[in-house]
C-alpha cells in the first residue's frame, strides 16, 4: 500500500470511528453496515484512475471532518426567506440536519410525500428500505460509500402516479456553524410514479467562513412517462468541499431535465449517471459553472443508451474568471442495439484569465448506425470587438464583460422555466463574476 493509500485509509477510519451509531430503523443500520463493508473492498481513489485524473482530493484528506450533531438550529431572517417570487414546498437542512420548523410542507396534494429520510411517514411500507437497497452500490467510490456508511438523513420525495405538482419542491441546505469542519452526508431519494410530474430545486449554501464537506448521494427514480425538472444551485461557502452524486433510474418514456449552476465551494464535483434500459426515455443534463481564484469545479457525466429510441443531451458552459480549474468529463455511450438514438454533447468554456485551466473530455461513443448525434467543445476568450462595441455604447468595461458572459450562457439560462429562479441565477452570476479590467 502506498503512502497515499495509507493516508486515505486512516482518514476514513478516523471518520467512521468518530461517528456515533445512529438510532433509527433497521434498514438504515443495514445500509450503514453494507457500506462499511464496501469501503473495505473499494480501491482507494487514485490520480491514475481516469475518473480522478484531474481532480485531486488531498485538501479533503487533510481535513478532520466530524458529523454534525442532531439539533434544532435557526436561520437569520434573510437566510430563511424563500427566493423572491418563488413559491415552493420546502425541506430545510441546517448544518446537515433536517429542520421541520423551518420547512414548508402544508397543502401537499393527497398521496405526495415530502419529508426527511428518518421521519416515520417516509418508511411506511418499507418502501424506502427497498429503494435504498436497490439503488446502492453502482458507480461506487470512496465518497459515495462514505455517504451510505454515515447517512442518517436526507430528503425523501414521492409523487404518486398521475400526480402533477403545481409548485416546485425545494431542498435547501444551509451551513451556519463555523466551529468545526462538518461532514454532511445527505442520502436523498426521489420517486416519481407513472406520469407523475414535478420540479425539484436544490440549493446549497454556507455562511462565509464555514468549512464542511457536503457529500451527497441522490437517487432519482422515474416511473413510466414521468417527468422531472431538476435545478441545482451550488452556492457553497468558498471554503467548502461539495460532492453530489446523482443516479437516475428511468422507465420508458420518462423525461429528466436537469441543470446545475455552480458558483461556490473551493472544490466541487457533480456526478450524474443514467442507463437507458427502456425505450423512449429522455435525459437532458445541463450546467453553468463559474470558476474563480483557487476553485476546482468538476462534472462527471455518464449516459448510456442500451435500448433504441431514447434521447439525451449534455450541455455545459463554464466561465473561468480567476486562477482556477474546471474539469468536464461527459460521456454518452450508444450501444449497438440503441438504434434511433438522439444524443448531443457539448462543453464550452470562456477563459477570462490566462492562468485558469480547463480539462475537457467529451466522449461520444457510438456503436449503433442509425443515430442522430453531435458533439462539440470549445475553449475561448471574449471577443475584444464585442467588448469595445459595448463600451462605445457607454457600458463600463467590467459591465461589458459581464453582459457578454451572461450572453455566453444565455441559452442555458433561458431554459430555466421558472422566471423567479432564472432571475436569481442571473443575479448570482452577476455578483459572482468579479472581473478585473483588461
Amino acid at each position, binding site marked *: 500500500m502506498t503512502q497515499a493509500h495509507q493516508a486515505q485509509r486512516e482518514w476514513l477510519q478516523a471518520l467512521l470511528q468518530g461517528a456515533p451509531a445512529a438510532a433509527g430503523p433497521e434498514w438504515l443500520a443495514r445500509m450503514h453496515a453494507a457500506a462499511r463493508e464496501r469501503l473495505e473492498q473499494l480501491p482507494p481513489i487514485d490520480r491514475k484512475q481516469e475518473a480522478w485524473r484531474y481532480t485531486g482530493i488531498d485538501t479533503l484528506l487533510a481535513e478532520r471532518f466530524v458529523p454534525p450533531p442532531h439539533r434544532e438550529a435557526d436561520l437569520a431572517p434573510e437566510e430563511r426567506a424563500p427566493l423572491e417570487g418563488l413559491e415552493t414546498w420546502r425541506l430545510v437542512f441546517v448544518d446537515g440536519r433536517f429542520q421541520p420548523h423551518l420547512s414548508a410542507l402544508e397543502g401537499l396534494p393527497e398521496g405526495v410525500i415530502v419529508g426527511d429520510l428518518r421521519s416515520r411517514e417516509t418508511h411506511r411500507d418499507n418502501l424506502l428500505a427497498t429503494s435504498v437497497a436497490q439503488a446502492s452500490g453502482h458507480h461506487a467510490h470512496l465518497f459515495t460509500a462514505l455517504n451510505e456508511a454515515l447517512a442518517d438523513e436526507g430528503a425523501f420525495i414521492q409523487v404518486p402516479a398521475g400526480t402533477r405538482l403545481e409548485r416546485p419542491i425545494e431542498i435547501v441546505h444551509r451551513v451556519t456553524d463555523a466551529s468545526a469542519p462538518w461532514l454532511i452526508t445527505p442520502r436523498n431519494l426521489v420517486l416519481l410514479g407513472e406520469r407523475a410530474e414535478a420540479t425539484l430545486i436544490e440549493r446549497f449554501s454556507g455562511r462565509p467562513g464555514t468549512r464542511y464537506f457536503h457529500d451527497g448521494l441522490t437517487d432519482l427514480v422515474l416511473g413510466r412517462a414521468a417527468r422531472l425538472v431538476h435545478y441545482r444551485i451550488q452556492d457553497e461557502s468558498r471554503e467548502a468541499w461539495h460532492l453530489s452524486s446523482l443516479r437516475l433510474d428511468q422507465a420508458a418514456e420518462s423525461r429528466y431535465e436537469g441543470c446545475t449552476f455552480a458558483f461556490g465551494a473551493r472544490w466541487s464535483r457533480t456526478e450524474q449517471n443514467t442507463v437507458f434500459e427502456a425505450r423512449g426515455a429522455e435525459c437532458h443534463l445541463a450546467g453553468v459553472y463559474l470558476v474563480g481564484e483557487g476553485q476546482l469545479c468538476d462534472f462527471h457525466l455518464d449516459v448510456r443508451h442500451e435500448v433504441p429510441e431514447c434521447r439525451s443531451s449534455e450541455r455545459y458552459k463554464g466561465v473561468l474568471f480567476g486562477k482556477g480549474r474546471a474539469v468536464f468529463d461527459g460521456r454518452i455511450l450508444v450501444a449497438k442495439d440503441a438504434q434511433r438514438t438522439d444524443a448531443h454533447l457539448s462543453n464550452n468554456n470562456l477563459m477570462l484569465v490566462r492562468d485558469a485551466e480547463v480539462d475537457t473530455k467529451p466522449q461520444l461513443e457510438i456503436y449503433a448506425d442509425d443515430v442522430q448525434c453531435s458533439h462539440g467543445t470549445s475553449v475561448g476568450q471574449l471577443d475584444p470587438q464585442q467588448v469595445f462595441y459595448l*463600451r462605445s455604447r457607454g457600458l463600463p468595461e467590467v459591465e461589458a464583460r459581464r453582459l457578454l458572459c451572461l450572453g455566453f450562457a444565455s441559452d442555458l439560462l433561458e431554459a430555466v422555466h421558472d422566471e423567479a429562479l432564472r432571475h436569481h441565477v442571473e443575479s448570482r452570476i452577476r455578483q459572482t463574476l468579479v472581473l478585473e479590467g483588461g
Partner: protein
Amino acid sequence: MTETKTPMLSIRNLHATVDGKEVLRGIDLDVGRGEVHAIMGPNGSGKSTLSYVLAGREGYEVTAGEILFEGRNLLEMDPEERAAAGIFLGFQYPVELPGVNNMTFLREAINAVRRARGEAEMDAVTFMKKVKAAAKQVGLKDTLLKRNVNVGFSGGEKKRNEILQMAMLEPKLAILDETDSGLDIDALRVIAEGVNALRSPERSFILITHYQRLLEYIVPDRVHVLAQGRILRSGDKALALELEEKGYGWLLGEEAVA
C-alpha cells in the same frame, strides 16, 4: 475667441498607427456645435481609423496630435467615458453579440450613460415607449428588438439598429461610418430621416460616406476629402458633387505633385 465659437470637436495634427503602420498622418478638423460634416475618400484612406480613434478603440495608437471634445482631452478618456460625454459611433460593421438581447443591451447602455452622468436610471415604461417610437422611426421590426444584438440581422437591419441606438442615446456628436453603404434607396431615406430628426443646434454629425447620394438627404455644412491619412481638401456641399463627377484621382494627383 468667444465661448460660442469654440468648436465642439477640435482635432489637431492627429497621427495614428495601427499594427505599427501609420494610417493617419496629420489630420486637422474642427466640428462646430450643430454642424454636419461629411468625410469622403477612397477605400483604405483612414476614415474608419479616424472614427475608431475618436471612439477610443484599443490598438489604434495616437503617436502625435490632440483631440479636444468640448474642451476636454478626448485621448485621455475611456470609450465608455466618451459615450457618457456624448460621443456615438455608428459602426461600419456593427458587431454581433450572441446571447445579448437587443432590448437589454439598449437599456443597459442608456442606464450606464445616465449613471455616468449622475442621472437617475430610465424607468421601464419610459424606456419601452422610447424604444417603440425609435424603432418605428428607423423602420426596425419589433421582433428584432427581442432578438440578440445584430445576430441574424441583414446588412440594412444592422444599420437601422445603429441609428436606433443613436436615437436612444441622444449623443452630442454622432460619427456615422458608412451607415449608407449597401442600403437601397428606401433604407437610405429612412436613415437620413432618422438623422435629420435628430439634427439640432446642440448636436453635431460626422458622416463618413462614399456616396454623394446620402448628402442629397442630409445636407452637410462641410465636406472633407480624406485620402492617404490626410484631409486633402475641404469645401461645402458642392465639393461632394465635384467628387461624384471627377472621382478622387485629381486630388490624389495634387497630393503627389505637392
